[in-house]
């Protein structure tokens, strides 16, 4: 599949090796990478964090960070108007060739990639002036046209706004408009949809497909999500720890994966065809929530204190010994609900009651929380594995925290024994207990977080987006661990997530939330295969599933068929 004929390939990377000069010595980030992109082709570059995919993309634009060393004999050749340009030798003004003229980039965080104090219009106009030599009015008209094209409602108004005045989806659209403003031949998109909610992710993906069809430009699409790749890419390259482990057409890589790593990535995707059967009988509830409302003061003190209602009058029973998924988009109040069950959110009305505890645990707006009693029954596993562990304590001290804080053990030896027991259960090596958290990767940190939650033997655990920050393969390990714990310890787990594929793989029972209200609940099969509410249906249809599609020969994008699934009616939510 590799074509050595230079004019044929838009971009050709040969033997690319990048080293990082870090605090811990020289680290190889990219190792002998070969990649070529033909005009009009969409190349999916798949890999997890640390696989070197982002560095590769940045080095195409010569934006690799200062401590990166591109080793010889690396070669990067760009076909620019039928001339072979050696990217690595570009200097000074010539760099604009890869920085805008022929190549553009979309970053993962649109919010951070626009300068906050400069109007979007000025940034786009500046770009057009540099590359296309437009004058101000010309650039302005072109910019607004682009805004219209990427589906921004009221483009003239939005054009002159600042980036923080736009909503998440709008920002990414604006970013795309910005990238397209120089009419590039190659668009590099670095995880462009990762930070977005599922429904918005689907819209942005559709937009990119549509634009690609209209403009016929090539794309290097970087992601960790094979579902997204299957929707958009013609060819796929899979990277692991700086090396290419598999490359080929999307069809080939996704449906006949050769490498074990690719298979593992594929396993992490939701398989809606083999969802678990519903249990024969629903167990008795461990936890009952009645008419629960949560509200936070928003702004203003004293006279003008406004309240924001995060959760509005929800009643819910959580069956014992099951994993219950709580799904919703950002701002749906799912985290507040989870925290309220642990007494960590301001309950404005309603109650939370735990059954089957030795002493009664019930609290609510009127009834204060018995913190220590609750702490032995219910625990939390956080979303961010970095900020939830005190960086100044050793792993042993972190895990032992609940035991020591509540004085549950009689001696240090007993504490150590309990810590070691729970560490083994969570697959943490005992020798690692005296290390500090900075020595661990995200997945290992999350194990520590789980071990801390389990050490006082609770009945109930709330896992708040606990795998959202992790790579797919690590996610799978943590999910397996959670399932194991449920089986072995009879734990009840409330699993909060925005990621439907994770929910589908893990949970027995699913609740869907939207804007503080409980929209629908049911078994996984019911929710995923037969959603009743319109909102749930929209959510389910937005999941990027593995799709087979007839590939068009690249370079002739008009032949491309987009996914079989109907594109959602254009309902761009504007603010």
């Amino acid at each position, binding site marked *: 599949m590799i074509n050595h004929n230079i004019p044929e390939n838009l971009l050709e990377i040969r033997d690319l090796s990048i080293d990082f000069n870090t605090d811990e010595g020289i680290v190889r980030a990219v190792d002998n990478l070969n990649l070529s992109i033909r005009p009009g082709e969409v190349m999916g570059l798949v890999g997890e964090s640390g696989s070197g995919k982002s560095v590769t993309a*940045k080095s195409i*634009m010569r*934006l690799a960070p*200062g401590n990166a*060393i*591109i*080793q*010889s004999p*690396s070669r990067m050749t760009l076909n620019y108007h039928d001339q072979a340009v050696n990217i*690595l*030798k570009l200097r000074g*003004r010539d*760099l*604009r060739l890869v*920085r*805008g*003229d022929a190549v*553009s*980039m979309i*970053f993962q*965080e649109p919010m*951070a*990639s*626009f*300068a*906050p*104090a*400069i109007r979007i219009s000025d*940034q786009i106009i*500046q*770009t057009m002036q*540099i*590359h296309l030599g437009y004058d101000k009015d010309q650039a302005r008209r072109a910019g607004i046209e682009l805004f219209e094209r990427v589906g921004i409602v009221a483009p003239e108004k939005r054009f002159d706004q*600042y980036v*923080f*005045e736009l909503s998440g989806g709008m920002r990414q659209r604006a970013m795309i408009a*910005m990238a397209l403003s*120089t009419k590039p031949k190659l668009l590099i998109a670095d995880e462009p949809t990762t930070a977005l909610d599922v429904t918005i992710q689907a819209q942005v993906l559709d937009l990119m497909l549509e634009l690609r069809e209209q403009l016929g430009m090539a794309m290097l699409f970087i992601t960790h999500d094979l579902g997204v790749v299957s929707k958009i890419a013609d060819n796929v390259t899979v990277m692991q720890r700086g090396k290419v482990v598999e490359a080929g057409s999307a069809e080939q890589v996704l449906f006949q994966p050769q490498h074990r790593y690719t298979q593992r990535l594929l396993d992490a995707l939701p398989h809606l065809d083999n969802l678990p059967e519903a249990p024969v009988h629903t167990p008795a509830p461990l936890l009952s929530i009645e008419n629960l409302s949560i509200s936070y003061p928003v*702004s203003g003190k004293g006279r003008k204190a406004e309240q924001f209602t995060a959760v509005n009058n929800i009643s819910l029973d959580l069956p014992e010994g099951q994993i219950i998924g709580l799904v919703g988009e950002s701002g749906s109040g799912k985290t507040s609900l989870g925290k309220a069950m642990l007494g960590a959110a301001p309950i404005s009305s309603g109650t939370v009651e735990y059954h089957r505890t030795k002493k009664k645990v019930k609290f609510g707006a009127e009834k204060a929380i018995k913190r220590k009693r609750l702490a032995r029954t219910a625990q939390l596993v956080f979303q961010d594995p970095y900020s939830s562990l005190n960086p100044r304590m050793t792993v042993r001290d972190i895990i032992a925290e609940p035991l020591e804080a509540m004085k549950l053990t009689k001696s240090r030896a007993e504490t150590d024994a309990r810590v070691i027991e729970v560490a083994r259960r969570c697959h943490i090596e005992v020798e690692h207990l005296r290390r500090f958290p900075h020595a661990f990767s995200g997945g290992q940190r999350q194990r520590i977080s789980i071990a801390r939650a389990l050490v006082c033997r609770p009945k109930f655990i709330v896992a708040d987006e606990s795998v959202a920050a992790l790579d797919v393969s690590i996610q799978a390990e943590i999910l397996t661990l959670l399932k194991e714990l449920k089986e072995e310890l009879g734990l009840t787990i409330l699993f909060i997530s925005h990621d439907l594929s994770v929910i589908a793989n893990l949970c027995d029972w699913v609740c869907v939330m939207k804007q503080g209200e409980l929209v629908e609940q049911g078994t996984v099969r019911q929710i995923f295969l037969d959603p009743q509410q319109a909102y749930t249906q929209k959510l389910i249809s937005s999941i990027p599933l593995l799709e087979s599609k007839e590939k068009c020969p690249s370079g002739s994008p008009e032949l491309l068929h987009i996914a079989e699934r109907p594109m959602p009616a254009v309902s761009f939510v504007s603010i």
Partner: protein
Amino acid sequence: MISQFLSDTWLLWVLLSIAGLLWWSARDSQYFSYVLNRFLLALATLLLVSGIVFALMEVLPGDCAEKYIAYKNTQGEMITQADIQAERVRMGLDKSLPERWGRWVTNLTLRGDLGFSCAKRQSVNLALGDRFWMSFMFCIAGLVFAYLIAVPFGILSAFTINKPWTDNNPQHSKTEQLVGTLMLSLQKVLDLLLRVISYLGLALPNFLLALTIILLYVFAGEAMPTGLFSEQWRNVPWFGDQGFETEKLYDFLGHIWLPIFVIGWSATALQLQTVRALVVDESNKLYVDAARARGVDGVALWAGYPVRHSISPLFNSIGFDFQRVFNDLPIVAVVIGLTDSAALLIEALSMTNDQELAAGILFLVALVVIGMNFITDVVLAAIDPRVRKSVLGN
């Protein structure tokens, strides 16, 4: 009668009308309600400052009555303890501290009256005269000097901070590596040199710096540029028979550069650190990379992105920078022999124990700082979208 009353209470009316105007504008504008809020907050802080300053001046030994009587004593009058007591009552010094403070604040808010200086035997307003403006101009000039040095060199320092000394890029040819290494080393050495020089401003206390310069004049055998004017120009009016006295201006400039240079240099070190930290912070943000990716480069990139975004916080700190510079001014004034309010402050504090005068000067400095903070807050909320968002919401 009424005009008398109005002129006695003019400042109060000014303050009230500003507040009223802001309140009127604030009814339907979020921005003006923020401005009003800030205005009231500034007034409250001023009130608090006046309280602190007033209370603090109590630690100075002696009071006005004692000084007055002591003055009379030197005139040859016989004084008894009863006389001092009577004088105290006449001056209202027998009242409690809060009561005296209340009266001081009332006089201040009604007509900007800072009280009566016992040592000078005249009102503080009169004793200060233009001298406070002189100090103010010195500080501003010193600040401008500091900014002029700190901003460009702070940016340069930020520019070189994460760069290596040598160019080891294997993609470059040997000559390119050599040239690159030379350029990098040059930048780094320049940065280090500038940092040493600016930190020297901090490490050489300003009185020493002033002394050193004066010493150089002594060695060179020239007249020391102390004070504001040379002897010959001191009493010459600015507009003489031949119109404007340009010579006097030259003489003036020849004198004022010294205090400005001295206080400016010592302020530079801190400013340099601030600018460097701010620019480094901004230049590590993703939007700078994103701008690079769009082909923005060179001056347009640095000036338009990290530097532009560092200006607001820098501008925001002007008030406290002023305070810091004024803090250094008294000692410089002593060494150089200035006659501005900073020198008066030193005199009032350490020689004449003139509580009212010292309190008046300190209050004026605080007024300037708070005023500047108010202005920067209000201006930034108007022009910087980030600030606007954080203080006004969307």
